[in-house]
């Protein structure tokens, strides 16, 4: 792969005395879909937050280096970081039930997300267009709904819409499908693949489910006990896993009868 490098990082993270990430380093090329797979508690979500320098809001501390498109994010001020978030890095959190403010209307969520980085007003039809890309209706009735009144699937799509509103070059998705039923799950995965293909957005896909990411990821990193123990294209991970943990993970996958 000789694609241009988008992101490279080396991260150590801890909550109080408990170290969760031990010098995890990695890179992501433009337009690449990388999956970070690990068991729950292996530091996946910490990774997602640390990359956006949001870990302090969960009581954690992250150290190391995050270089995004040639900029060292660790050196940025709070204000500087705010400009990066949402504009250059989009974030799709897990469980829309918690991640969407139930008392705020869809319209307001879109508008506020827009206003965070743009002084001019949203062009007419823009919101409908974005919603359309995540297969949500853009009509007035829907825009007037409170986020608390959406179904989980709709909520997850809306979270994606909010994350891609400013066309970020990197999308971090933290278990975006774990709360969904199998059919919706497949649709959302397809959506990520489409986004990647159409806009060239690089995606860091964080999941505990090796199988579900295998279909869309160009590369899979296996996270175990705070470090990446193995990295490679899905075919290699599935075909010839090296690390004992990877092997255990692959063997535990359900097989077709």
């Amino acid at each position, binding site marked *: 792969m000789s694609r241009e490098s988008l992101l490279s990082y080396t991260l150590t993270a801890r909550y109080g005395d408990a170290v969760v990430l031990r010098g995890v380093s990695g890179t992501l090329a433009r337009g690449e879909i990388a999956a970070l797979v690990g068991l729950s508690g292996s530091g996946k979500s910490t990774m997602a*937050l640390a990359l*956006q320098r*949001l870990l302090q*809001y*969960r009581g954690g501390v992250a150290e190391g280096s995050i270089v995004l498109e040639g900029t060292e994010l660790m050196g940025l001020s709070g204000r500087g970081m*705010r*400009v*990066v*978030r*949402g*504009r250059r*890095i989009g*974030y799709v*959190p897990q*469980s829309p039930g*918690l*991640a*969407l*403010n*139930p*008392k*705020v209307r869809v319209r*307001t969520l879109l508008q*506020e*997300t827009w*206003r*965070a*980085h743009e002084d001019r007003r949203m062009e007419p039809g823009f919101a409908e267009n974005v919603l359309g890309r995540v297969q949500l209706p853009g009509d007035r009735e829907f825009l007037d709904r*409170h986020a608390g*009144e959406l179904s989980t699937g709709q909520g997850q799509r809306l*979270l994606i819409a*909010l*994350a891609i*509103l400013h066309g970020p070059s990197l999308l971090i998705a933290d278990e975006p499908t774990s709360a969904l039923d199998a059919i919706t799950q497949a649709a959302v995965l397809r959506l990520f693949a489409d986004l990647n293909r159409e806009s060239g957005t690089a995606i860091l896909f964080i999941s505990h489910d090796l199988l579900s990411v295998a279909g869309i990821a160009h590369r899979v990193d296996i996270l175990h006990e705070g470090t990446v123990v193995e990295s490679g294209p899905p075919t290699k991970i599935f075909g010839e896993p090296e690390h004992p943990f990877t092997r255990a993970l692959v063997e535990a996958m359900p097989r077709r009868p």
Partner: protein
Amino acid sequence: MWKRLALIFLLLVGTSALLSPVIAPFSYSEQFRDSANAPPGGKFLLGTDDMGRDRLSRLLYATAVSAVLAPAAAALSVLLALLACAFPGLVVGGLTTICLSIPWIFLFIILRAELPLNTDPSISVLLTFALMGVAGWAGPARVFSGSIREMMESGWMLQARSAGIAGWRIGLVYAWPHLRSVALAQFRVLAPVYILAEASLGLLGLGVAEPMPSWGNLLRDLQHPDMVRQNPAILAPLLLLMLCLLAIEAVAVKTHEKEVFR
């Protein structure tokens, strides 16, 4: 239906209270000494008290004092609490704990004692309620700070941050709808508490002083329950108080429900 009825009732009480100087048949302090303890009817619709003062007029003025000033004080407390929460350090820093542990009754004693003796009674009443409002900030502030802490840890707060939305916008657009219902609930709790607090301050002689009436000092007539048999009209302030509390509750609850189950 009930909500509308309650609203109309509250409006009616409010306007008649504010218009009491115009619509009250007599001044609240005018003494008809020959007609002391008169039964309801005739010249005095609700009868007179033991000083020969018209109970209806006193009730109207008392409503202006209690039903208007107590909610105002409650609103002041809630407002101050919200302002205090804009400086979270203060709240988390234990100031609320200190304020909640101060025996505020002494402040009222000091206020009474330090006010110039010839202060106009209406000003001292206003100050009493203002002090009540100021003194009461810590309770709601603690509730607000609890709910803010909860919000800080919420998923949607993190999502908003990850979208790069500025802190003040998060506060205004995302957090306020939550705080608003907490604030409304606090107001609903505090308003009746202040009405009753004035009544108990009145028992200590620290609330609204003679001859000015308030629900509190009208309720003092009920200390002698056998008086009720003589003139049931002395129950009127109690009835009005209860109806107002019920009405406030009805209006507030319906509004709240509507918000949640749209």
